């Protein structure tokens, strides 16, 4: 017995586009998160599919769902079926590749995107079952989050006090932290901080966090519509 509290909408729901919660709904969600990592409009995207995602991704609709997510479609958007066509109409170049990403979850994809500002971003995510996802890497930084909560992601210098400064800003705005995790490459170098919150995070809060000298980069993934 693992589960303790189950909503009836986990049983009669979710409303989703078929055929499979892990291969379609989860894939659309990973695409949606990737879209939010790019600040500009995405013009080119490559999907590197691993494991069971790499097998029969066409028949499962995984490819269409990933692309649909990139286009801003939620897992219950019926336009996912036509995402190739819609992407082409919007002038977005896309391609799919089968790869071995090593020791990762069987339903894993690496997405490499370029936007109209010339910026390049990468994201690795896994569809872990029942439509739930786990993002494990953004732009080469290891991390872990589910995108079920509004999520703030920082790249910062691994110096004492940074985490405390960030959390005190959040406290001042009455933002409750649901989960906070820090991942670092090596001691004293760059680290990433993932903060999943219970409340909406406004741009002014993000600006204030960015103003902390040890914070090098900040990203916000809104959970809305994912």
């Amino acid at each position, binding site marked *: 017995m693992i589960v303790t509290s189950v*909503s009836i909408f986990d*049983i009669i729901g979710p*409303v989703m586009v078929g055929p*499979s919660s892990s291969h*379609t709904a989860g894939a659309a969600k990973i695409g949606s998160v990737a879209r939010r990592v790019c600040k500009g409009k995405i013009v080119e995207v490559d999907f590197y599919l691993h494991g069971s995602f790499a097998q*029969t991704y066409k028949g499962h609709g995984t490819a269409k769902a990933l692309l649909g997510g990139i286009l801003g479609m939620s897992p219950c958007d019926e336009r996912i079926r036509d995402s190739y066509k819609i992407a082409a109409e919007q002038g977005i170049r896309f391609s*799919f590749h089968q790869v071995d990403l090593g020791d990762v979850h069987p339903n894993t994809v690496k997405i490499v995107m370029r936007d109209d500002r010339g910026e390049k971003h990468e994201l690795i995510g896994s569809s872990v079952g*029942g439509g739930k996802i786990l993002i494990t890497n953004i732009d080469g930084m290891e991390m872990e989050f589910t995108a079920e909560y509004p999520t703030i992601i920082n790249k910062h210098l691994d110096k004492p006090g940074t985490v405390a400064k960030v959390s005190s800003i959040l406290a001042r705005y009455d933002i409750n932290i649901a989960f906070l995790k820090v991942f670092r490459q090596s001691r004293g170098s760059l680290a990433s901080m993932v903060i999943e919150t219970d409340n909406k995070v406004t741009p002014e809060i993000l600006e204030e966090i960015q103003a902390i000298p040890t914070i090098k980069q900040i990203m916000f993934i809104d959970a809305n519509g994912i």
Partner: protein
Amino acid sequence: MCHFNHALEILNLCREHNLSLPEVVLRSEACETGRSREEIWSLLENNFKVMEESIMKGLAPDIKSVGGLIGGNAYKLKTYAQNDTLSGSRVLKAASYALAVSEVNAAMGKIVAAPTAGSSGIVPGVIISIKEEKGLEVADAINGLLVAAAVGKIIAVNATLSGAEGGCQAEVGAAAAMAAAAAVFMSGGSDEMCFEAASMALKGLLGLVCDPVAGLVEVPCSKRNALAAAMALTAADMALAGIKSFIPFDEVVEAMYRVGRQMSPDLRETARGGCAATPTALAFARRLLEQDNNL
């Protein structure tokens, strides 16, 4: 006060507080999620509407799944059901509706997972066909959904609803149990009878393996939905006739979980056993992979 994890608990709550089964489910959901009754009801109404729409769409003659293995079967069965059939028009209506939803699912259309996408045809197939056949209101169907949700929740908490973990008995088997209980409730049966029907339906599908051809949610999934809908109706009729399950529902759920644990991983969604390992399935999977590589 309305928390329940077992059939015994929810039946006690109904008796102690003199409440109906759906009422206890509503209260427990409100308690656990902080949502108001009105909000829960309107979310259910919305899901019910999506179910109805998916049936309508799936009854079209020209629907085709993404993998290309199924489509148009709901239309065939619905049309044939107007004849003098063997199983009777009510059973075939439920079965054709179940086929319809699962064909829409396989065609990347919008469905309500109930409890999963692969098993999404059974609960709407049974509930909506009964609503139509008996001339019931939407509210009666929503009450049916609440009863189905209670059964599904008990299985989720004490066992699993995932084919990868428990085989198809955890998806199609669970959906049949949910639908059978809803059918009894919508026909005016007692609370106990709802769980007798759920027990019989789940026992009937105990040990069912998950063996999707080429890993697609098409074969055998879609036809299994139709057959499970028919089984749910029969289980409901058996309960309404006063037949009791020798094994109580909570114990059937435990048994289902144990059987799932004993199942080889080949029989749990990996597409390495059962129907998926037949020569026909393997040949199809090879063709599909070649197509994918040429994309």
